[in-house]
């Protein structure tokens, strides 16, 4: 009777879903997502065709570079491994394996944020299907395996195994086996780091701390790099990197790259080799285990959002206060103006809103300081040799990061843009406010860079250079303001620098993504040929004569765009709704 009741409760329990069915279903899902992302949005009109042409052009330019970036480490690994054995420098295998592993993890971690931005698939969503944990673990390990880091890493290790095998055929088999396990270890290490990073980065405080740490690491690395630059000249043999590589072998003995290298090199002593191989297996198991712990938490169900944990039952009075603080920010700014306001009420209200957003983003504020530190570092290296370019170079460096904001007048607001579309206001006022805030940030950044350069410059900067740089700066800012504002109206979706094919982008968006990069780089790089012309003609004021009219033209162009902005937006309301008002 009890059996009957149990059978009635869950009749399908007896027959398990075959592993193959679910694995193939997920593989098919990934394949369809890949195919659809390429072929589903076929261009039809002339404008879309231009977008497609630009996409193809971009690929033609980028792919050879990417291929070189991949072939280099692969061929280098094979050659280096062959050299190590053939030339009787077996200890060189330690840094080689460590280098491949480090590069693997570095590319994987950096690629993760990009992959997350362009992917529409969240693998953790698979937990809602009837999967046992083992299958979930296998699926999560397999999904996303075909990443550049894994492919290049595996091929580099394969090349190393081939190199070792060619140099000493007796080591070919152990090299293949050991390096296959080493590749597996790297896969689990990547997965472990990704899974735990995702958990930690869900915490706002950790995100902020992590951003600061990454920035400090980048700055520190550059600082050390340039500090060593003058002593690097005599030859590779004396370089710090070379010494570090050779001095690291004893330490690597106790780490997975050392286990892998020893397991191959001690093949003549089976017990020693097996002990080292066991060490490598244990490392692999350790990383897989830590990865599995995180996934198990995820599988059981978790909510990483901080919004709930920060929430507390609010009294009606408190709720009212919060409500008035949030929604009243714009209204208060508009209403509580002095008798002679500097800005019209709408502009002032939008400016206040932009300021509140900027103030609540410490990472962005910290990001503004980073270029200044780099200018100090660059002053000791690149600009020490080319002091003529110090001022414009430093300004260009400082401006590059902040100029992208000019292209996201509406994109950064996302769905919130509906407020502007519905409110009885002139959208031109919104553009003016947003541009003013961006302009304030840009001017502050450029001004600080100028001050840093003035303090650090070894010789007084000639007035001609100062004037031409000032005019060039006005030109760069005004040109990017004009194009940025126009782009924000023509293709309002958010532009992310460095991501040429914008996510879920229309052909207009894709095209404009490429154009933005051209305008950004082009306007900044214009300083180089103009400075060269000055040198050729021995006329230092020539640059000012060139940039003066250009700056005036750019300012005029911006004024024209601004004057017609209202009409342009009204004509493109449908596009705004399509690109920004859809969740």
């Amino acid at each position, binding site marked *: 009777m009890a059996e009957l*009741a149990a059978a009635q409760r869950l009749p399908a329990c007896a*027959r398990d879903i075959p592993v193959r069915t679910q694995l193939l279903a997920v593989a098919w899902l990934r394949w369809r997502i890949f195919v659809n992302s390429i072929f589903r949005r076929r261009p039809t009109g002339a404008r879309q065709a231009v977008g497609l042409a630009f996409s193809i052009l971009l690929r033609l330019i980028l792919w050879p570079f990417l291929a070189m970036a991949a072939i280099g480490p692969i061929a280098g690994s094979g050659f280096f491994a062959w050299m190590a054995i053939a030339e009787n420098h077996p200890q060189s295998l330690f840094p080689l394996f460590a280098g491949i592993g480090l590069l693997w993890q570095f590319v994987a971690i950096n690629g993760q944020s990009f992959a997350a931005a362009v992917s529409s698939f969240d693998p953790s969503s698979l937990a809602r299907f009837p999967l046992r944990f083992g299958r979930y673990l296998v699926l999560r390990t397999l999904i996303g395996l075909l990443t550049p880091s894994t492919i290049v890493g595996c091929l580099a290790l394969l090349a190393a195994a081939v190199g070792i095998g060619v140099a000493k055929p007796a080591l070919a088999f152990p090299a293949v086996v050991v390096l296959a396990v080493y590749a597996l270890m790297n896969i689990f290490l990547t997965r472990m780091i990704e899974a735990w990073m995702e958990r930690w980065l869900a915490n706002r405080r950790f995100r902020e701390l992590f951003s600061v740490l990454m920035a400090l690491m980048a700055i520190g690395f550059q600082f050390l790099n340039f500090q060593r630059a003058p002593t690097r000249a005599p030859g590779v043999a004396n370089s710090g990197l070379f010494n570090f590589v050779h001095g690291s072998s004893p330490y690597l003995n106790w780490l997975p790259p050392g286990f892998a290298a020893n397991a191959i090199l001690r093949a003549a002593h089976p017990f020693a080799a097996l002990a080292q191989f066991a060490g490598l297996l244990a490392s692999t198991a350790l990383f897989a285990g830590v990865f599995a712990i995180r996934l198990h938490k995820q599988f059981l169900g978790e909510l990483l959002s901080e919004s709930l944990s920060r929430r507390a039952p609010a009294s009606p009075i408190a709720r009212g206060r919060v409500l008035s603080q949030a929604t009243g920010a714009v209204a208060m700014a508009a209403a509580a103006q002095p008798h002679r306001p500097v800005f019209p009420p709408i502009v002032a209200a939008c400016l206040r809103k932009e300021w509140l957003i900027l103030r609540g983003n410490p990472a962005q504020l910290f990001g503004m300081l980073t270029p200044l530190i780099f200018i100090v570092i660059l002053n000791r290296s690149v600009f020490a040799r080319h002091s003529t370019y110090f001022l414009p170079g430093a300004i260009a460096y400082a401006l590059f990061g902040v100029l992208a904001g000019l292209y996201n007048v509406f994109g950064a607001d996302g769905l919130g843009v509906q407020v502007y579309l519905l409110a009885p206001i002139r959208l031109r006022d919104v553009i003016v406010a947003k541009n003013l805030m961006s302009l304030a940030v840009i001017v502050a950044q450029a001004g600080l860079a100028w001050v840093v350069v003035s303090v650090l410059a070894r010789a007084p900067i000639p007035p001609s250079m100062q004037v031409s740089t000032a005019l060039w700066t006005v030109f760069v800012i005004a040109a990017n303001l004009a194009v940025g504002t126009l782009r924000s109206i023509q293709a309002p979706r958010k532009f992310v620098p460095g991501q040429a094919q914008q996510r879920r982008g229309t052909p207009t968006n894709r095209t404009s993504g490429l154009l933005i990069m051209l305008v950004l780089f082009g306007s900044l790089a214009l300083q180089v040929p103009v400075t060269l012309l000055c040198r050729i003609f021995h006329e230092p004021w020539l640059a000012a004569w060139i940039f003066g009219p250009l700056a005036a033209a750019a300012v005029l162009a911006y004024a024209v765009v601004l004057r017609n902005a209202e009409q342009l937006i009204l004509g493109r309301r449908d596009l705004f709704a399509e690109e920004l008002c859809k969740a």
Partner: protein
Amino acid sequence: MPAACIVVSSYKQIMTTPAIDTIALTRRFGDFTAVHNVNLRVDAGQFFGFLGPNGAGKSTTIKMLTGLLAPTSGSIRILGEDMKDNPAEIKRQIGVVPEGMALFGRLTADEYLRFVGRMYGLDRATTLQRTRELLEFMQLAEEQKKLIADFSHGMQKKLALAAAVIHGPRVLFLDEPFEGVDAVAAGTLKAMLQRMITRGATVFLTSHVLEIVERLCTHVAIIHRGQLVAQGSLEELRAGGGRVGQKASAEEAEPVDAKHRSLEEIFLEIVGTDREGNPAATAPEQELSWLS
């Protein structure tokens, strides 16, 4: 004991096994308790409405009941099986339309349903047949080759519902299923859900549209600030019973006009009082005199 008696007795036992049964279900997020000590019982074959104001803990409860969120404490039994012991088998017996719908935007409707069918272990032929039938039923057949990302909100909702039922679940969890769905499609969906109920399935539904709940559901539970404040049949609630933690019962309550009270009135009455029956502030007292 005669064989017929054994069969009848075991049938009774099966029927008394609740489809959903939670004991002291609690979920905390840091210091905040989203769901506190919830004891829910939903019998098999019931059309059950789960109500509560915004932020009361409805979606958190559904997430726990469907295995998407682990409870901090307490237990969940679905069709007699403990969620902790056998989540995969429970997931196989349930269908879910979650709050965010969890669709894959880069797939077409047809591809998505085929994927879901295969994940639930349906064979290829059955998956294809059900996909076709569901797309027809949900009036999505003409849009089946369009990317889900390009669907309207209502179309996405219909597709999420189709995916939730493709494997023939015995318990269906629906988080705001009619939100953004047009009247014609809503009628079709309601008919489908009613048909599932008559065939023995259990439907657990949350909605802010109390008229829909009143028309469809036979039983209702109300959650407020993470705590279950009422549970029972609509008749019980109308008669003033079903309050959790209160002594009032159907017999004690005054029968005057009880049959004519709407669910909205009952809901506002219950949510407007705390667990001890004292009036609780539900809306700010400002007059907003500037409103025309």
